[in-house]
């Protein structure tokens, strides 16, 4: 049941009590978010059903097509900045031809998934939290539950499916644009020919970089969805609460992306 009883806490007596309570609230929220994730993963079996199709396609459109413009600009300029910064330093050693590898590897391993996830978290994730939060406040979620329509299947599953598929695809797109942007900077400002740039990029980057980057993006997509939906569902106190849920969803997503991104890198690049 998503509609929850109002929560009341008696004031903590001292600082230790306040820390303890803070810890308990974090654990409780993490547990509730994991329950939403579990239910949504089970509900993925309905992703191709006739009932869910309009919602799922709608979310694919919002996550994929509507984010394309921002991803294009951010992906390309990230690659261009990377190429320029590394190229200027490498030129001191006459190694500017190596910007191809530097841009390709950095984009695939870190910048591609991370920048894409940041954009999706700020645009799509915050919208999810605000939308679901508004639905909680206006009793639409309660109405769904009373009509015996599970809110997680109806609202979270389509968003999760779209983010699981579109985040890796958008990441790949951002990486390719970044590499292309780097090639333009290399050619126009550092005097590295396109052939030399791409030869160098392909020689040093390996398939593992691509796979791990896409895997990260996949995990980031799931995290953004669950954090944002959980924050939306936890909204209380009207319009102020919706604003708070939206802000929290972005902050928690950003922090989680950084921490989980590091953990995945640490585990897979030993």
């Amino acid at each position: 049941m998503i509609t929850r009883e109002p929560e009341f806490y008696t004031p903590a007596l001292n600082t230790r009590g306040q820390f303890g309570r803070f810890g308990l609230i974090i654990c409780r929220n993490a547990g509730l978010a994991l329950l939403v994730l579990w239910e949504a993963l089970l509900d993925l079996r309905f992703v191709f059903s006739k009932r869910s199709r309009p919602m799922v396609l709608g979310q694919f459109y919002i996550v994929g097509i509507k984010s394309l413009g921002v991803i294009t600009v951010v992906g390309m300029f990230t690659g261009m900045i990377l190429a320029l910064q590394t190229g200027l330093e490498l030129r001191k050693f006459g190694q500017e031809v190596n910007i191809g590898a530097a841009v390709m590897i950095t984009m695939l391993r870190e910048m591609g998934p991370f920048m894409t996830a940041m954009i999706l978290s700020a645009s799509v994730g915050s919208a999810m939290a605000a939308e679901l939060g508004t639905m909680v406040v206006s009793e639409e979620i309660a109405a769904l539950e009373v009509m015996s329509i599970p809110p997680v299947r109806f609202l979270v599953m389509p968003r999760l499916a779209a983010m699981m598929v579109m985040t890796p695809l958008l990441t790949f797109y951002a990486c390719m644009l970044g590499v292309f942007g780097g090639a333009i900077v290399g050619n126009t400002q550092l005097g590295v020919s396109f052939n030399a740039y791409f030869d160098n990029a392909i020689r040093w980057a390996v398939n593992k970089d691509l796979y791990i980057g896409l895997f990260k993006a996949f995990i980031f997509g799931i995290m953004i969805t669950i954090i944002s939906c959980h924050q939306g569902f936890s909204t209380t106190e009207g319009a102020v609460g919706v604003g708070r849920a939206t802000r929290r969803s972005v902050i928690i997503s950003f922090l989680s992306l950084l921490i989980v991104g590091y953990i995945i890198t640490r585990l897979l690049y030993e």
Partner: protein
Amino acid sequence: MIRFERVTKYFGEKKVLENVDFAVAPGETFVIVGFSGAGKSVTLKHMIRLLTPDYGKVYVGGEVISQASGRELQKLRERFGVLFQGAALLEWMSVGENVGLPLREKTNMSEHDIRRRVNERLEQVNLSHVYDLSPSELSGGMRKRVGLARALVMNPDIILYDEPTSGLDPVTSRSIDQLIERMRNELKVTNVVVTHDLFSALAIGTRIAMIHNGRILEISTPSEFIRSQNEIVKNFLDSQYITKRGKWEAQINETQEN
């Protein structure tokens, strides 16, 4: 039909319901009135298990909804239609899609049959022309009527109304009252109405329960209610200028005769 058995509910340390005991008979319009914060909506939410009592039980047709879960709870909830205070329409769907939502999600009816049923329900609430409109294009009264059409679409036994006339002008409020009355007469449903609009309560209620500070103060018929000797009830009646008891008695008798 619905029975509260010594229901007590706390929000933190505050007792919001205390030993609430009442039963709603099939086919009646049971109206719960009271001042803001008295516990009316909390009572209503217990009926559909959006809240769970800390003590006591809530029965729906002999089954304990306050302890039900999973499929059992779903089946019990399918007996209800609920009109929420703000109508709770999904804003990204058209009116027709909103009303047809439970049919699309819970039944295997064809699109043609769904459209026919939705149109029937919209006609029942006098809104046959709004199928393709968006909820944002509707007035407050129209939204409530669409909410009522959605509540009716699965043919429930019981309809719950949470402040059905709040925020509406007197003319629209009376038209909503007439609709509630019509639902009971035509569809033989049981109505439970939560309101602080006494005009509404006296016009449509078969019995009125006054709740104050989480306790039921009085349950009586409208004609008994306006003659109540309870000071809080009298104060509540006076606060809405229902002082000419004779006039109201005549109107209540007329409604009941009809």
